[in-house]
């Protein structure tokens, strides 16, 4: 029988942890920061260290009943107040209620004359006094490296910092110390040497004009942690980190089926439609009706009372609502009922990780059962150093674990046989629906066929897609359409014609 405590093979219990309350971070660290120990958070200026540290204190005070003290060495009362305000709290209110205490320690820029031996007991006393005043359990020192510019004797300073970190542990305080990133060392003054238990590094890069933020656990003693970089976002509620979900493919395959929203399409899929929790790709050239297919699917889900989340990267929500009205679809009533939630963003507004983080956050908040991403095409243009496929792997993985049925639309280009970006992505998808324009005998028409759909005997026929104010209908089976077997087969046959 498994014991209550997690024991490693050597019989040691794993380190006790203190939850940070920061979205995603507690998942990555499997519980939070090491309790009663000092964690170092390092990174360049502007990467979010102070915000992370403050968030740790605010959540501690408000959600976990652990008051916190912040010793601020950088004379930034406005910045701290603003950071706390960005999390939705008032620093003065928190201080009044003895939940949070900030002590601003001013470092004289011009080094003070040293007339003999000294130590930093003054700092210790101030910290102890603040901790005692509100019975704090959490401490932040931000940023302790500022002391190096005020105290000339670096040997005394280092020895005192070591003593300070030991003091924090003796007092059983869980602490975060922030440090500025160095060029040769992790922090400018090598603080990482004194921090044994946990080191987190934050990074903020601008690649091809897109800024991305990443978090990496450099060290976490006693815990198996991912060594990857996790993208994170600084949003309205503070920091959200996107955890890698299930490195092992263990999502359950659901057997429920849900309607595609188009009656005849359901028929083409064993009369039942998609598997719940599956991923669907809809590709087609411009104007072939991809968004309409997505909208019909969404509308059917809302009609069943299910929550839907529609991410749009090209058209504004009001454009979509208007366009769908013209094909007989009233999406507004679902929006009004709170069943349909649009999120519109320009693909270039942030890096792929940023988009992923937003999607994660909204899904966690709204808990939809259906998610649409329309289109994923433009996201390719912001790939930069981060491959769109990796992002989609993470996203689809996350959606399957949450058992959310997802639909992705992708624009393909005329003459381009569905390959390229679609092929890069199609292996992630359980169902692939292809839309096409063609002009047999000079009469233009739209065509739809199901290229693949795992786990079901789907129809391989192509049908005409008729779009009118009455909505979307699938017409007759097209006898003159090449059999939709493989992508290569379809394009070769089309070329031969």
């Amino acid at each position, binding site marked *: 029988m498994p014991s209550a405590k997690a024991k490693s093979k050597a019989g040691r219990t794993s380190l006790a942890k203190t939850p940070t309350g920061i979205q995603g971070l507690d998942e990555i660290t499997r519980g939070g920061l090491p309790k009663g120990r000092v964690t170092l958070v390092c990174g360049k200026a502007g990467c979010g260290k102070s915000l992370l540290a403050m968030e740790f204190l605010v959540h501690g005070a408000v959600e976990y009943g652990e008051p916190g003290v912040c010793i601020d060495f950088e004379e930034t009362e406005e910045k701290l107040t603003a950071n706390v305000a960005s999390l939705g709290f008032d620093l003065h209110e928190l201080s009044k209620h003895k939940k949070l205490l900030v*002590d601003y*320690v*001013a*470092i*004289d820029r011009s080094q*003070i*004359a*040293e*007339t*003999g*031996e*000294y*130590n*930093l*007991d*003054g*700092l*210790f*006393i*101030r910290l*102890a*006094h603040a901790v005692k005043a509100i019975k704090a359990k959490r401490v932040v020192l931000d940023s302790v490296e500022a*002391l190096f510019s*005020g*105290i000339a004797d670096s040997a005394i300073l280092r020895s005192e910092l070591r003593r300070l970190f030991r003091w924090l542990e003796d007092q059983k305080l869980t602490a975060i110390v922030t440090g500025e990133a160095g060029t040769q060392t992790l922090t400018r003054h090598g603080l990482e040497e004194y921090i044994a238990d946990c080191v987190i590094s934050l990074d903020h890069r601008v690649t091809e004009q897109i800024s991305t933020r990443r978090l990496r656990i450099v060290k976490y003693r006693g815990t198996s942690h991912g060594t990857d970089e996790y993208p994170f976002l600084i949003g309205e509620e503070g920091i959200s980190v996107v955890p890698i979900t299930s490195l092992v493919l263990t999502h359950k395959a659901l057997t429920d089926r849900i309607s595609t929203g188009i009656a005849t399409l359901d028929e083409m899929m064993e009369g039942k439609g998609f598997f719940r929790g599956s991923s669907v790709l809809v590709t087609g050239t411009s104007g072939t009706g991809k968004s309409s297919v997505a909208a019909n699917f969404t509308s059917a889900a809302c009609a069943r009372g299910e929550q839907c989340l529609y991410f749009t990267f090209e058209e504004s929500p009001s454009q979509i609502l208007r366009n769908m009205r013209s094909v007989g679809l009233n999406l507004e009533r679902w929006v009004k009922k709170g069943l349909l939630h649009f999120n519109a963003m320009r693909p270039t507004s942030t890096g792929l990780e940023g988009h992923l983080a937003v999607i994660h956050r909204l899904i966690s908040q709204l808990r939809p059962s259906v998610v649409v991403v329309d289109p994923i095409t433009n996201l390719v243009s912001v790939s930069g150093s981060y491959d769109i496929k990796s992002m989609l792997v993470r996203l689809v993985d996350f959606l399957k674990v949450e058992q959310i049925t997802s639909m992705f639309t992708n624009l393909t280009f005329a003459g381009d046989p569905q390959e390229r970006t679609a092929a890069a992505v199609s292996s992630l998808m359980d169902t692939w629906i292809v839309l096409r324009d063609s002009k047999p005998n000079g009469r233009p028409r739209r065509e739809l066929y199901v290229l693949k759909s795992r786990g079901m005997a789907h129809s391989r026929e192509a049908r005409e897609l008729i779009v009118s104010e009455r909505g979307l209908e699938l017409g007759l089976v097209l006898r003159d359409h090449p059999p939709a077997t493989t992508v290569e087969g379809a394009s070769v046959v089309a070329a031969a014609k």
Partner: protein
Amino acid sequence: MKKKTAKKRQPKTSRSDFFILRLYIAGQTPNSVAAITNLKKICEEKLHGKYRIEVVDLLEKPQLAKGDQIIAIPTLVRRLPPPVKKIIGNLSKTESVIVGLDLQPAR
């Protein structure tokens, strides 16, 4: 109207002669004791009685550390005459003390 007589004021020169020095310590540690001893000696030699030393023990009054922004112990603050000056250490380096606090009494 009655003018303010010069008698009622301290003459300017002697006012700027009078030093008020505040020494922050944290308990009777060897450094702190040495600082007190050194300070008394320096003041006697250089300030000829025109001084007052205040010793603040932060172990007894921790809340006073904030006002003068004390981090290091011992710290000596020259409060009067202005400007305020601050030095740290046990004051064994006499020259540093004199220069750091600018202890030459004004003429």
